[in-house]
């Protein structure tokens, strides 16, 4: 178990990989005038602003203190905690010594917070009340080394007091050592108090001894106390140098203004020496002590160090700036940073030590729901650009052995968005990816797997049929003697299918991957030697519901509508703009594009949509028309028909085509054929269509992919999918009008999503008629070749952005799944 604290939104480890855990200090009524004034005006929203600034500045946890004379601490704290809990990602530190106030906050805080603080000032009364609460609510607690004699000044006193507190908290109240953060107190070395000349040393030694003598506990300091009484600029430098020394001595957490931490690398050698002299009371000039020398030095240099004029980038280490470029998905200035880093790092070290860990961090953030897929792709673009810049600078033999992965979309399947997302994620996490493309025969995959000597094979496919292709190919891979584990991904796959149908025929692990990040996880497991075949446990997986009509009783007396014509027509003159009102924006933004609301508040999400998403959407709509990206074309017709059992016999002139539809195995045993009348009932009519938006947008999409514009690639692809659906929705409405169903259009887009109109359209390949073989007779009837649509050997339509359907006019006909 990793000791952590948590907000409603995230867990934060107390022991950060890169210490210290930064605890923001500006929301303290005693420490910040701005905060105090807002509090005195009951301006809690204003207080939240400061909290958000601290979060943006990099605080991991926020200390909140509202204890101020004349104020109702309990009311202020509970108001602030409630407000902050809903708005801040970082967990809170409840800074109060009043047990009733602490308990009120613990009760309402939706996570694990830290209580600040306990001590032995009153001989052990209050500490016992607070420890009981900390135990009851499972919190963590800060312990100050204060006893009945006051604040512990010497290392010995600090350690002794810590030990006494540890005894009470752990032995009496059952807290675990890692629930406690000991603060051995910091006193200023800047006020000229002779008794405090060695204060830094006493505190640093206490840190070392507490860590050594009380195993498992954490340590904390209010770092900026070290520099009280000094000028603001010199304080920042002294705080930074002291922080560095404290971390070296074992400091885990620091209460500090996150915005004012100066990286040690930004402190000049000379300034640093001055700080160290003061901290360790090193007398170099017998005429004046280190404090006077320090003050004199910084009086001279203070003027020229108005660092507010510097940009943020300049103030941070270039390593951190590069990592931020990747995490923020920001390409501007990237090459400058790389050039700076190249003066002291090899290209390979920049990739392995900075870029790859940065991308992993991005992946982790995505995994925790803290960033959205579009932003991951922006980061991957930066990664790609950085690697492309560095690669020519690398020695040939410098590129070390990395895991090699082959990717392919299986035979008969043209869908490549899923496979390409996997390539983006894997290649930008430092792996060597061979992307063979779409419609790949088994033989080619085997040949290339041998040729490239790959470690892992990844297969993708959207179609139900592709799942079968994968299943049938596994014995072939086995017979060919391949030993690379096989990762399988695709919309039609389930862990059950993979475990039961794909795992057994192949000796090496066959692993189901739900998305690109599951693929990344599998590759890492392969490297760690822990990759295992997918297993399926029926009892732990709920059986999915099967929504749909609950009765099989279908009204046989519905009048057959009169059709405007029988046979087929082709239409090419459709203005793309008429489709826009039919675009399912919710599915586009949230589903296709990945701009999910997730943990955001309603307002924050609305802002994101209006600021980032809608402008992109408007631009695509403009380009759809101006650049002829969308060329809607339709092949459609009406045909006399009759149902016979599970089949629909469709009459096309002198020919009869048989469409056989599956019937539900469970009640109510629905089948599409049931919605049409039999010969005895007088026969019926059926509509069919094939609609396409043409090949241009697919080409534009692939150009974006080839140009490594990952973000726009995903966006344009998603747009093309949804506008194809919009065309189907639009044309279905046209056909309902032709059939005379006037005034049955839904009022809202949601109305279309839930079929608030007469009848239904069933897409081939979808749940009510999953078999794509129906495309064959339909192509005979509709001749969609005339609008540029053809079929693959797996009965899939090309171009990709094409869809087909049979239209039933029966009012009871609605979606269902077989």
């Amino acid at each position, binding site marked *: 178990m990793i000791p952590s604290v948590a907000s409603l939104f995230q867990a934060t480890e107390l022991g950060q990989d890169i210490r210290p855990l930064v605890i923001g200090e500006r929301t303290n009524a005693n420490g910040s005038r701005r905060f105090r004034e807002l509090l005195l005006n009951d301006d809690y929203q204003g207080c939240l602003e400061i909290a958000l600034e601290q979060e943006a500045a990099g605080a991991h946890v926020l200390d909140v203190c509202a204890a101020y004379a004349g104020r109702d601490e309990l009311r202020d704290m509970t108001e602030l905690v409630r407000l902050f809990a809903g708005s801040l990602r970082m967990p809170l530190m409840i800074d109060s010594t009043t047990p009733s106030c602490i308990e009120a906050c613990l009760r309402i805080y939706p996570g694990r917070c830290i209580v600040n603080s306990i001590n032995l000032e009153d001989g052990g009364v209050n500490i016992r009340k607070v420890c009981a609460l900390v135990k009851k609510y499972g919190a963590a607690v800060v312990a100050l080394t204060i006893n009945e004699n006051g604040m512990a000044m010497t290392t010995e006193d600090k350690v002794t007091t810590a030990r006494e507190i540890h005894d009470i908290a752990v032995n009496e109240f059952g807290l675990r050592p890692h629930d406690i953060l000991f603060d051995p107190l910091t006193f200023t070395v800047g006020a000229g108090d002779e008794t405090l000349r060695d204060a830094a040393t006493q505190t640093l030694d206490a840190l070392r001894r507490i860590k050594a003598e009380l195993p498992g506990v954490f340590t904390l300091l209010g770092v900026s106390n070290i520099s009280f009484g000094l000028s603001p600029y010199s304080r920042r430098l002294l705080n930074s140098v002291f922080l560095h020394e404290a971390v070296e001595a074992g400091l885990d957490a620091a209460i500090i203004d996150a915005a004012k931490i100066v990286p040690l690398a930004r402190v000049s050698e000379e300034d640093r020496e001055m700080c160290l002299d003061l901290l360790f009371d090193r007398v170099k000039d017998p005429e004046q002590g280190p404090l006077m020398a320090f003050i004199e030095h910084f009086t001279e240099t203070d003027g020229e160090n108005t660092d507010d004029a510097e940009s943020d980038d300049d103030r941070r280490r270039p390593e951190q700036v590069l990592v931020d470029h990747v995490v923020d998905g920001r390409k501007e200035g990237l090459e400058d940073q790389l050039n700076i880093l190249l003066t002291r790092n090899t290209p390979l070290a920049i990739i392995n030590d900075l870029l790859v860990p940065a991308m992993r961090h991005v992946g982790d953030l995505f995994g925790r729901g803290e960033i959205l897929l579009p932003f991951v792709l922006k980061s991957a673009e930066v990664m790609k650009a950085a690697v492309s810049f560095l690669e020519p600078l690398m020695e040939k033999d410098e590129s070390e052995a990395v895991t090699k992965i082959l990717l392919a979309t299986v035979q008969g399947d043209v869908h490549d968005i899923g496979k390409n997302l996997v390539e983006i994620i894997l290649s930008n996490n430092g792996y060597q990816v061979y992307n063979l493309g779409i419609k790949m025969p088994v033989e080619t995959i085997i040949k290339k797997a041998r040729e490239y000597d790959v470690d892992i094979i990844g297969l993708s496919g959207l179609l139900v049929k592709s799942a079968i292709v994968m299943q049938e190919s596994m014995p072939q891979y086995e017979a060919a003697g391949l030993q690379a584990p096989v990762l399988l991904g695709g919309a039609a796959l389930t862990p059950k299918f993979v475990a039961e149908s794909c795992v057994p025929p192949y000796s090496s692990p066959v692993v189901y991957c739900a998305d690109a990040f599951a693929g990344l996880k599998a590759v890492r497991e392969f490297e760690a030697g822990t990759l295992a075949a997918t297993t399926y446990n029926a009892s732990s997986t709920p059986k*999915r519901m099967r929504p749909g009509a609950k009765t099989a009783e279908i009204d046989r007396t519905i009048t057959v509508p009169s059709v405007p014509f029988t046979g087929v027509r082709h239409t090419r003159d459709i203005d793309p703009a008429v489709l826009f009102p039919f675009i399912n924006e919710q599915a586009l933004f949230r589903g296709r594009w990945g701009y999910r609301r997730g943990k955001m508040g309603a307002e924050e999400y609305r802002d994101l949509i209006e600021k980032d998403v809608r402008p992109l959407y408007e631009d695509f709509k403009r380009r759809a028309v101006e650049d002829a990206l969308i060329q809607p074309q339709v092949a459609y017709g009406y045909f006399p028909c009759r149902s016979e059992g599970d089949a629909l016999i469709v009459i096309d002139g002198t020919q009869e085509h048989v469409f056989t539809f599956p019937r539900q195995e469970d009640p109510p045993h629905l089948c599409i054929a049931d919605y049409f009348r039999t010969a005895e009932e007088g026969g019926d009519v059926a509509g069919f269509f094939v609609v396409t938006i043409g090949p241009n947008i697919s080409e534009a999409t692939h150009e974006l992919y080839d140009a490594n514009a990952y973000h726009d690639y995903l966006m344009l692809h998603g747009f093309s999918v949804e506008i194809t659906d919009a065309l189907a929705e639009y044309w279905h409405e046209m056909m309902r009008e032709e059939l005379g169903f006037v005034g049955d259009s839904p009022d809202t887009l949601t109305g279309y999503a839930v079929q608030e109109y007469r009848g239904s359209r069933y897409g081939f390949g979808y749940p009510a008629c999953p078999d794509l073989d129906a495309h064959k007779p339909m192509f005979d009837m509709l001749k969609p070749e005339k609008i540029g649509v053809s079929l693959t050997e797996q009965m899939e339509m090309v171009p990709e952005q094409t869809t087909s359907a049979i239209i039933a006019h029966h009012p009871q006909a609605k979606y269902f799944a077989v």
Partner: protein
Amino acid sequence: MRHICINCGYIYDPKKGDPMNDIPPGTAFEDLPDEWVCPMCYATTENFDPLD
């Protein structure tokens, strides 16, 4: 709170429930059974976003 399916745009409204899956009115989204899926496109609950 209402939730929206990110795949098809169907809105689950607790006030209405979901007759297609025999979910009575007044059932909170969080209280839907594990085996519940979108009545329109069969997406599982993790494919839903809060709406209000």
